[in-house]
């Protein structure tokens, strides 16, 4: 907590997917808050993408966590926000590119949920492995803008609701070990719509490195942190979406563009520049939707 992530009296939403990282995060946050009187008001915030056999099951886990940890839960669905579930979208567009929708919608859904809960901050369960993986992906994609940003422990401080990643330096291995010994109740199934290609390779590479030299993960994060962008590099400008008011560097935000395509029966609209299939949530490098960092994980994990 030396990074000044929180201060007393703050309202904090924990992005909860039912997976290991967010479950451990919710457990640790609520335990520390009680034990050391941090004075934080904690909430669980879950996004229901509407994926039968996947998200409905993991939401059951979150509902149990709500009771186990005594934290109020807010569930926000794609259906209520956008009028489409992921099942509907996949029916319309097939398995290709569906993760573009999933990722763009989820990020925005989290911000909207946080606004409804009137929280001061959102915390997510991204761990050191996730961040190292994202650093590598941003290097491979040449996405300079996101490269250094993806390593910040807190992002979007200038935006409406900052996000932070308390597990930034926590190895995935430690989280799984912790969950095991504490017998925490978490959900571990991969998204049924996830083709799991590009990011999967980076993941595997990180795990191979870790076996040879565990520090490598932290070293990669450090490299990302130390990366400096020369002032001559033009960074995309931020504005707001003319339609919904969400942050966007284009006239319409990515979610609105995708929705327009869906509603007009032209689902290809807005998918233009993605590079082949990638995992849900694994964001769409230069899709304009904005300030948020691209880090994420397997499809369906809450990566916002």
């Amino acid at each position, binding site marked *: 907590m030396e990074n000044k992530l929180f201060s007393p009296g703050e309202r904090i939403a924990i992005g909860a*997917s039912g*997976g*290991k*990282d*967010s479950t451990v995060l919710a457990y640790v946050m609520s335990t520390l808050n009680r034990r050391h009187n941090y004075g934080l008001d904690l909430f669980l915030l879950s996004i229901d993408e509407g994926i039968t056999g996947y998200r409905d099951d993991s939401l059951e886990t979150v509902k149990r966590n709500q009771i186990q940890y005594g934290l109020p839960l807010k569930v926000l669905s794609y259906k209520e926000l956008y009028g489409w579930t992921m099942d509907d979208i996949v029916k319309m567009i097939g398995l290709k590119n569906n993760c573009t929708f999933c990722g763009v919608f989820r990020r925005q859904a989290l911000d909207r949920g946080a606004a409804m809960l009137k929280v001061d901050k959102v915390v997510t*369960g*991204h*761990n050191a*492995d*996730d961040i190292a993986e994202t650093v590598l992906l941003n290097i491979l994609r040449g996405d300079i803008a996101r490269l250094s940003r993806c390593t910040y422990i807190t992002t979007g401080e200038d935006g409406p609701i900052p996000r932070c990643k308390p597990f930034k330096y926590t190895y*995935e*291995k430690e*989280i*799984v*070990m912790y969950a*095991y*010994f504490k017998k925490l109740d978490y959900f*571990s*199934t*991969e*998204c049924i719509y996830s083709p799991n290609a590009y990011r999967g390779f980076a*993941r*595997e590479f990180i*795990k*191979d490195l*870790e*076996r040879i030299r565990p520090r490598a993960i932290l070293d990669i994060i450090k490299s990302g942190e130390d990366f400096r962008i020369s002032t001559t590099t033009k960074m995309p400008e931020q504005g707001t979406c003319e339609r919904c008011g969400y942050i966007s560097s284009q006239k319409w935000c990515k979610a609105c563009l995708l929705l327009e395509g869906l509603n007009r029966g032209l689902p290809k609209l807005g998918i233009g520049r993605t590079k082949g299939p990638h995992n849900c949530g694994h964001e769409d490098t230069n899709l304009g939707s904005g300030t948020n960092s691209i880090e994420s*994980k*397997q*499809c*369906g*994990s*809450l*990566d916002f």
Partner: protein
Amino acid sequence: MQLTLEFGGGLELLCDSVKVHDVKVDGGDEKKMSMKNLLHWVRTNLIKERPEMFMKGDTVRPGILVLVNDCDWELSGQLETVLEDKDVIVFISTLHGG
């Protein structure tokens, strides 16, 4: 030799969604067995699908946590770890979503 094998974090899906397996393993020598031999046995007898999700080369895939009697096998010699009767071995995948 009697062993308890536990699969978690999604690995149970590779063996008929059963998490805990009480098994009798005949490793040649009745009293002792190495983790190396056990992995081979598991791959042959328990893993029903996608063995590449469990093994890579002659060891577990990176990202799979192995605990022998609740102790990280990296501390007990990994593949050389010697198992005894009634040991509990846990395999947990760390690779699935967060």
